[in-house]
């Protein structure tokens, strides 16, 4: 029992306790936190089984890039599979279940796949299940489908309702962190119509987990003050719980608003989700940066987390990921997590730094091991220690959670969705958005300006420039004073050398570093080939965590620069969007217009069973009392028409009147058969020809 709720701290509402269930077990959490945070507070680290080897997996992140903590939420037809616990807002009565395990999360028979892993390497589907061909559909595919996979799709009719909307604005600001808030304020104050969208249920982004003070008050208070001013401005629309998932031509953005995903019983008068198409004159991308994981032996054991996520859980949600935490880092960010945890009273077992001479200050009494590498982790369903190696000397350190920090990568998905290729920055060791013109500008951490002060300044300056471009006065505002800045620098470490266990690159699809090596050896070294051969980055998280390491490793393995490897293609959607939301109200009888012939009412009264014929509803047959099958009715009708008279309603067919001296000749040229010219009152069904004689 190790992860626990801290005695104080966090921006959760500790006076509002919420009851929820995970795999049938009753648990408690607080209002204002995510499901993942509440699970951690209940020491539920094991949340899922991996895709291929069914390895036990735990929560890794505190945001939308989560690869492991996918759960099914809700009951019956209203179940949402593959929901990320790290973004799911906790509510009273939430019912979540783990996926891809049988018979239970703790004892999973599929874990036997782990023993077979030597035979399940990259491309094994292509190599193993080749012959006999007839076996593929009947034996192999059903077998693979049962063993692999994540959540199960619900086959019942979706009881939720959805709708689609359009919105128009001068400026859309994507992301309400420090950059986005400053940008929205700057643009809003001079009168631009601004939409501020953020996927979180609480706005503020990284400010919600920030310990640095702004204008000599906590960062959270600064965020609240910004939001209060924004709410008072009539020209600002604030859209929380809204993911901007796509950037399309003419600066149209696609966004998904989760209107009622955080309530146990949605109101019928409101949609559950709303799909927005937002036409923006300008856009500012303030999506921040994502911490990269480290690729080391045993890095997938539950308890291994992103260091930044641990910091978020501690500072924002008041939850400690463990009682004794080890940090493995290649830069300064790991030290920041260590000192924040330390300040919360969590023991930091050690800081393992891959760099030779780190200059960062560790919290008092914490041991720093430089030039070292984590080569293995201990424990089964949760980590209980790690093995660190330095210059051939191995040492086991006991800990119950490991925070990993592999440097920062700007979230640039939207900027690259229309064909522009990401550009490698050798200074920042990551990919940046290319210059894509005035329509969309990237600011703050998303543009590689990681410092808090830099984010605030960048957001304000770029918004002022956009205001000027659009003919609004561009008034400079005094920038808030930022307290202690943290150095965001790091030294790239694509692979922690000496791994004694599987070192995973892509957690969700179970791709480890050896799979990438195999892909390279077998001629699939191009990043797009390697992705498809190993499936790295092909899971539902689309490689949000793994992509940078995939590129870095492919480059390192070949001894070339990541710039020459490049990234795979960025495509909408940024995060998965439910089909229901894409369909909106256009489903069932509202999927297409309903056309009724003048005889519809008469036919209905006489017991017609209708069939769709194009958009028209035409009687298929008239069922009479006692007739059990369509065949009985049809047989009766056929006999009746043979012996008497039938009536067929063909008023739904198109009609064109043709008259004049050569009308018959004209028809002759249009139709396959000669027309009965001169015979009045005759009727004939025939096939007309198009321009191409068909």
């Amino acid at each position, binding site marked *: 029992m190790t992860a626990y709720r801290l005695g104080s701290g966090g921006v959760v509402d500790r006076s509002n306790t919420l009851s929820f269930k995970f795999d049938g077990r009753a648990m408690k959490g607080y209002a204002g936190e995510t499901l993942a945070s509440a699970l951690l507070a209940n020491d539920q680290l094991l949340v899922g089984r991996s895709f291929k080897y069914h390895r036990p997996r735990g929560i890794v992140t505190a945001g939308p890039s989560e690869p492991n903590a996918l759960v099914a939420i809700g009951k019956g037809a209203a179940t949402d599979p593959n929901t990320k616990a790290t973004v799911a807002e906790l509510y009273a009565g939430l019912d979540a279940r783990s996926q891809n395990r049988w018979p239970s999360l703790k004892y999973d028979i599929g874990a036997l796949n782990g023993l077979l892993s030597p035979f399940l390497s990259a491309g094994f589907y292509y190599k193993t299940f080749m012959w006999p061909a007839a076996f593929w559909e009947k034996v192999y595919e059903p077998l693979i489908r049962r063993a692999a996979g994540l959540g199960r799709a619900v086959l019942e009719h979706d009881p939720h309702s959805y709708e689609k909307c*359009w919105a128009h604005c001068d400026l859309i600001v994507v992301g309400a962190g420090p950059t986005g808030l400053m940008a929205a304020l700057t643009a809003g104050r001079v009168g631009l119509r601004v939409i501020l969208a953020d996927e979180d249920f609480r706005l503020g982004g990284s400010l919600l987990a920030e310990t640095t003070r702004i204008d000599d008050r906590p960062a959270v208070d600064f965020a609240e003050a910004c939001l209060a001013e924004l709410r008072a401005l009539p020209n600002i629309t604030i859209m929380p719980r809204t993911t901007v998932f796509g950037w*399309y*031509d*003419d600066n*149209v953005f696609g966004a998904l608003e989760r209107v009622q995903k955080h309530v146990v019983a949605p109101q019928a008068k409101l949609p559950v989700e709303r799909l927005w*198409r937002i*036409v923006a004159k300008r856009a500012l991308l303030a999506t921040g940066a994502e911490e990269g994981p480290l690729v080391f032996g045993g890095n997938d054991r539950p308890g291994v987390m992103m260091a930044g996520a641990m910091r978020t859980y501690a500072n924002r949600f008041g939850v400690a990921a463990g009682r004794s935490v080890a940090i493995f880092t290649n830069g300064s960010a790991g030290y920041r997590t260590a000192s924040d945890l330390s300040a919360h009273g969590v023991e930091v077992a050690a800081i393992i730094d891959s760099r030779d001479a780190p200059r960062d200050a560790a919290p008092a009494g914490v041991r720093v091991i430089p030039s070292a590498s984590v080569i293995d982790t201990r424990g089964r369903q949760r980590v209980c220690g790690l093995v660190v190696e330095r210059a051939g000397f191995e040492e086991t350190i006991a800990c119950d959670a490991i925070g990993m920090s592999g440097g920062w990568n700007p979230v640039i998905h939207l900027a690259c969705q229309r064909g522009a290729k990401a550009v490698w920055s050798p200074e920042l060791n990551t990919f940046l958005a290319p210059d894509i013109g005035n329509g969309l500008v990237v600011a703050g951490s998303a543009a590689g300006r990681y410092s808090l002060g830099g984010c605030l300044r960048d957001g304000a300056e770029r918004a002022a420039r956009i205001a000027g471009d659009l003919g609004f006065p561009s008034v400079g505002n005094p920038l808030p004073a930022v307290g202690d800045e943290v150095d965001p620098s790091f030294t790239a470490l694509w692979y922690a050398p000496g791994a004694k266990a599987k070192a995973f690159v892509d957690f969700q699809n179970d791709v480890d570093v050896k799979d990438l090596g195999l892909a390279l050896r077998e001629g699939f070294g191009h990043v797009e080939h390697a992705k498809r051969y190993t499936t790295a980055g092909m899971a539902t998280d689309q490689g949000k965590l793994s992509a940078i390491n995939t590129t870095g490793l492919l480059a390192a393995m070949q001894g070339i620069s990541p710039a020459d490897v490049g990234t795979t293609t960025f495509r909408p959607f940024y995060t998965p969007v439910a089909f229901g939301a894409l369909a909106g109200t256009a489903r069932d009888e509202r999927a297409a217009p309903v056309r009724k012939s003048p005889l519809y009412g008469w036919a209905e009264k006489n017991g017609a069973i209708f069939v769709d014929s194009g958009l028209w509803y035409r009687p298929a047959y008239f069922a009479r009392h006692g007739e059990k099958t369509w065949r009985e009715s049809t047989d009766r009708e056929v006999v009746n028409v043979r012996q008497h008279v039938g009536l067929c309603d063909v008023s739904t067919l198109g009609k064109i009147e043709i008259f004049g001296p050569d009308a018959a000749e004209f028809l002759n040229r249009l139709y396959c058969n000669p027309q009965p010219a001169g015979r009045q009152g005759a009727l004939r069904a025939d096939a007309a020809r198009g*321009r*191409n*004689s068909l």
Partner: protein
Amino acid sequence: MASLIHCPHCGVRPSQEFSIRGDASVVRPAPDAADEAWHEYVHLRSNPRGRHREHWHHVAGCRRWLVVERDTFTHDVFSVTDGAAVAREGGR
């Protein structure tokens, strides 16, 4: 493809309201033209990468036929003209 189309009758409308009806640059040959000319007119279409003229039908709007000149690669739209106006100018 462009997300928004400036219809000369309805103003800026989403492209989902339109139905693309094919190449607007082909010209119907004279009735007695050679078979090759007819073959080309009826069956052959180019798929250009770059500027292209197409018939767009504003199905969910004014229901007019329009001629849209656009770039199939950059997705820029250069002009949207009523089909009848194009025909009157002999531009088809």
